[in-house]
């Protein structure tokens, strides 16, 4: 099994935990790094490996405080990679958390939901 990916949060990058063994997939916090590729490329590479032999069910939890528009693109790329799990018998679904009244994060979630082929649930915190 693929070793887990764990990235501690910083002032401008989110906490990431992709742990296949315990079946925990979580990303939360702020994302506004100066160089988005530098932060997200290793995550995308990890996912690229993971989707070759994914868990039966992958449940990704997203709980963002804030992300900038170049991160928005990278987050979309993460979803797009994970979407490929659908092509096998395995399943992927996403829960997108937002604070009550946080229109920005709610709206971003609704937008992803509208353009992805993944079961995508928005939840108020």
């Amino acid at each position: 099994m693929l070793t887990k990916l764990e990235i501690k949060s910083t002032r401008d990058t989110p906490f990431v935990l992709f742990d296949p063994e315990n079946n925990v997939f979580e990303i939360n916090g702020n994302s506004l790094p100066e160089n988005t590729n530098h932060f997200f490329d290793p995550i995308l590479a990890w996912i690229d490996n993971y989707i070759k032999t994914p868990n039966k069910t992958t449940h990704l939890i997203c709980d963002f405080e804030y992300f900038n528009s170049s991160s928005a693109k990278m987050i979309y790329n993460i979803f797009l990679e994970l979407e490929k799990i659908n092509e096998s018998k395995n399943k992927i679904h996403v829960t997108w958390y937002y604070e009550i009244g946080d229109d920005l994060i709610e709206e971003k979630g609704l937008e992803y939901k509208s353009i992805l082929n993944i079961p995508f649930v928005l939840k108020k915190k």
Partner: protein
Amino acid sequence: MEAMNIDTTFWFFDRISEDNLCLLYNGSFSDEITNKLIELSEYNIHNNVSLKKMKKKASFLMAECFQNIVRHGENIDGQEIDYVDEGFFLTKNWQGIYYITSGNLVENNKISELKRQLEKVNSLSKDELKLLYREVLANQEISDKGGAGLGLIEMARKSGQKLDYFFQNFDDQFSFFYNQIVLKSMEEVFSPNDESPFELKEAIEYHQKMTESNILVIHKGDFSQDAIFPVLKIIEENLQKEKKGAVSKKKIFHILVELLQNISKHCYVENNKKEGIFMIGESEGYFVINTGNLIQNEYVDDLKDHLDKINNLNGKELKDLYLDKLRERNLPKKEGAGIGLIDIARRIISPVNYSILRIDSKKSFLTINVIA
């Protein structure tokens, strides 16, 4: 109150365009905000070879200014007054000279005592100041607010100059107490006999203009991530005090991040620096944000096309364009700004106003103005 308009922007741009760096702040002074103002100033100093040597001294003097602002400002005589923690702060580097100016409200009935202390400090020699410092340390009665006396002595000692100050009447109860320190990067201190090209009265004029036009922050300098962060925090702290809902705060924050990171990512880099000017103020309940920075001429046409295009789209069309850009794979690197500007356009009440002025064969100056 007069709205912050484009004339105000140019009034400041004209005056600070020659500065290597300039930070102007007109707002409330919490510990968080003063920490970030110091962090930003230290970052600016650190990045300037000619200033590096005086980093420690400048930091100390800034902290001392804030101590004065906070100590004199807070909860005067137990009364709850909204504006007592409001103040003004300026740091400016111009041709190797570094200025630190602060302004804070003091009660009118305390002015004469404060003046007496200032004059006393100014009348003493270096050695006499040292003696007075020890005396005050041993005898806490000098000021009922505790540190004011010591603070003034320390400022005079560390800066090695007479304290340059001015009292400007504010209302029946308060006056602004302004104080300016001038540091020269080459010599240890600025000699009191030298003419200072930037006088305290000019700093006071900046403050008055900022107050009239409701401007919170003006920053000219480097716009790397390390400089953007303190700016964001300072504004975020001020937004917390606003009566606006969380929606609006997040929206303003988002627009700021996008605009400031656009400078950082796309500006014309000179001497390894990502320089720009940024200004935020309020007008009729809305936030007005202006940025200015150099860009390479080769990006001008595409940027114009892009901005003209998004300025002609309605909300629905902007959303569709945003989603299209989100789905596009392998965007060319420089197009990163595209999606950010679209997302800004979706959240503002004005168009993305812009002007592009050709400087020379390589670069142009881009200004962007939005109201949200």
